[in-house]
């Protein structure tokens, strides 16, 4: 069974790179470009992993994370937060809200893929 990954990112080029990477690894993926879309997609698509950018329009990545974690129907979806802001407070905030991993941009593709695989139990 293919693992499903939801990409929540508003920068098109970053989206493109993430999509390529997910595709190459063989995951099924969906993309949301803002927070609200991300939440909708999360409940519809029921991903196993969420690649969540912090700076999302409409609803921030933190809020999405919080909502997702608060939604029992979404189960234990893994969340990796992506951000260009590398401050410790941001990291702590994210992890406190329930993210499983936090990756700062620009990321190393290797690191990203390894984290995704780890969280998906492979």
């Amino acid at each position, binding site marked *: 069974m293919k693992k499903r990954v939801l990409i929540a990112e*508003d*920068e*098109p*080029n*970053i989206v*493109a*790179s*993430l999509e*390529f*990477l997910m595709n*190459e690894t063989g995951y099924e993926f969906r993309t949301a470009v*803002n927070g609200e879309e991300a939440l909708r997609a999360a409940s519809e698509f029921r991903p196993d992993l969420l690649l969540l950018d912090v*700076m999302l*329009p*409409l609803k921030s990545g933190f809020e999405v994370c919080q909502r997702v974690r608060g939604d029992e129907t979404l189960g234990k979806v893994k969340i990796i937060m992506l*951000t*260009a*802001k*590398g*401050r410790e407070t941001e990291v702590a905030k994210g992890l406190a809200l329930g993210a499983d991993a936090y990756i*700062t*941009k*620009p*990321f*190393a*593709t*290797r690191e990203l893929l390894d984290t995704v695989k780890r969280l998906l139990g492979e």
Partner: protein
Amino acid sequence: MLTAPVVLIASFAYLGLLFAIAYYGDKRADAGRSIIANPYIFALSLAVYCTTWTFYGSVGRAATSGIGFLPIYLGPTLMAALWWYVMLKIIRISKQNRITSIADFIASRYGKSQMLGGLVTIIAVVGIIPYIALQLKAIANTFSIILHVPETTALDKQSAPLFLGDNTFYIAMLLAAFTILFGTRHLDATERHEGLVAAIAFESLVKLVAFIAVGIFVTFWLYDGFGDIFSRAAQVPELGALLTLGGAAGNYTTWASLTFLSMAAIMFLPRQWQVTVVENVDERHLTKAIWLFPLYLLAINIFVLPIALGGLMHFPSGTVDADTFVLTLPIAENAPGLALFAFIGGLSAATGMVIVETIALSTMVCNDLVMPVLLRMKGLRLTARRDLSGLLLGIRRGAIVLILVLGYLYFYLAGEAYALVSIGLISFSAVAQFAPAIIGGIFWKGGTRAGAVCGLGAGFLVWLYTLLLPSFAKSGWLPISFLSEGMFGIDLLKPQQLFGLSGLDDIAHCLFWSMLANIGCYGAVSLVKAPSAAEHGQATVFVDALRLSGATAGQRLWRGSASVNELLALLGRFLGPERAREAFESYARVRGARSIELLAADASLVHHAESLLAGAIGSASARVMVASVVAEEPLGLDEVMNIIDEASQVLAYSRQLEQKSRELEAATEELRGANQQLKELDRLKDDFISTVTHELRTPLTSIRAFSEILKDNPRLDEDQRGKFLGIVIKESERLTRLINQVLDLSKIESGNAEWHSSEIDMREVVDDAAAAVSQMFKENGVELEIDVPRELPTIVADRDRLMQVMLNLLSNAAKFCKRPGGRVSVALARQDGFLRVDVTDNGIGISESDKEVIFEKFRQVGDALTDRPQGTGLGLPICRQIINHFGGRLWVQSQRGAGATFSFTLPFDRARPQARAAA
């Protein structure tokens, strides 16, 4: 008929009557219905001044000096005229300060000095002893005479044995017993003895009547009236001289000195002080006394000369002592009843004097001499004893006995050498020593304790040397050479011709030197050193007594803490617990407190307690006792000054502090504001950096990601490879742009940018910008219109920067105008002193709220859902900075859905806009 038993019974009966009157008087006083609150009684009590000296001695004096006996009565008469001021003041002061004796008065005036009180007491006791001896002599003599009726010969001057075999000793002890009975039955806080005053007034009447009776007998019975006596006397040559002023009557110095002495005596004899000041019930009685007393003196002296002349004419000269004429004439003329009456009169005069004088003296001895010493002896632990009233009474009784014993001794040793009057004058001279200290004390604030001590001491010593010791010499107890050759044989130290001053009689001589020494030392020593704070306080109280109201007088600055119970206990120890309680209760009533417990232990209560106590043990000792109970801190003048100084310093300092704290507050406010600003700036800075990093990292992410993808996936197809590389390139460009703009903006904002200004034709800039964007416009299908005026002045600015602005505005316009059919127009115009450029597009417009947002760093607006703007968000902020730098303004006008017009102005003259901006 006049046998010893008869005389004795009569005497005891009379004394018993006196005692009964006294007892009745005291009873009525206790019941609150005083029988002596009467100016007539008061005036009569003053007549205690007239002792056996008056009764017998005046006649004796008149027999030798004629009217020379009068000055002793002139003095009091003159003094009485001054009483309305001097005595009033003394009485007022004494009442205000609860002064109970002459020693207390002097001690209190000079700073409540116990030492001074003791000195005065010693002087008083030593000085009065001759006077008491005089009374004893008179009683003894007259007693003998009346027992030897009808023999009227002069007494055998055989020496009687001392003490037990001597009648006089028993007389002295008897008098002591009576005095104790009259005056020491209980302790009174005010030292008043109403019963005693009643008895004295009665006694004054008795002696007056007795004397007048004898006078009438002699003048109208033995002779035929005044005229008869005087004319007969004038016929005898020696007697005639007695009727004139000169010669035997004594010269002016004698009269002057005697008058002065008696003026002092009427004021300062302890018994006079007792009846005039201490026993005084109402100071208004004084006004009646001022004329009643001289009237009494007149009455008792009318018959002195007649009796003297009569006696001289009746008895062969030298056979009968003139001092006894008052008694011997009735005896000689077979009037035993009258003689007995006269004897009783004389006895009355003597007992009155002895009782009052001794009581006054014993009070002083107890309060001012013994108690201070006992209180100082810590071993006795008097302060711990609960009831000291018994001790006080015991001391007084002992003093009475001792004084009478001393009086008896003086009589034994020196009494025979002198006539009565002369002995009396010795005592007058002693008490005259009090005059400078007292008169000075109530009129001169400069009198100090040291001055009083020196004055009194010097005066007393001179008196001792010039009068008292000579009296012993004249009686044979000191070598006569002491008199005739002076001490150690030095001529100048002859006691009665000191430093060669001769020609004065003994009394005048003593008066001269003693007053010189006394007043001289008092004045000089007082002037040498200023009064201490205590002395000054008391001086004010005394000198200003008639001016000060009763309430404040006597209360000095006081600082301390006390408890009502402690004060009550203290008072109880000396007055007895009940009396103390009564006193406090009446005080509480006056103060409006319902019970003693509710009294405030404040300065006025302490003062009141002290006053009450002063009545029992003297003000100096009272001071000490109260101070031991109250934790008082005595304030000195300099302390007071220090306190005032401190207070004003503290005031000044606190004002300073107030000022400083206000300034501090203001400074703190400023700091707070600055801190806020800094925090804000810090936050902004953090935000800026945070945003910049974010913006920089975003393109970097794509660049890195795709670079890695390209590397890791060599088997990518050409399309994808091309696409990905394209992204890398684009994002690199974006990144570069961003970095440049951030740097640019930073430089402009921090003022580090370089500006290369020159004269510019804006039309050229517009044209060039339009050319630069024409390609982009064409690709996007946007039309561009340019409208420039024919004439336009040049402007001084940085061409590249203006170009930057134009390009930015144009590219924005193109980005946001309608698709398709986008139209952008540029209008260039001249407006007053400004150049104006408008760039209009027909895009979706900008909402009101966004109009300022777009000028914020990194902020971009647009339809977020559909089109993420590709800008950096720094373009407009930079444009604004540039335009502002040249003194212009950049703003936007727009309505949502109706396009937007970005406009900016630039002043032709750079100097002016600054003024305009300021306005």
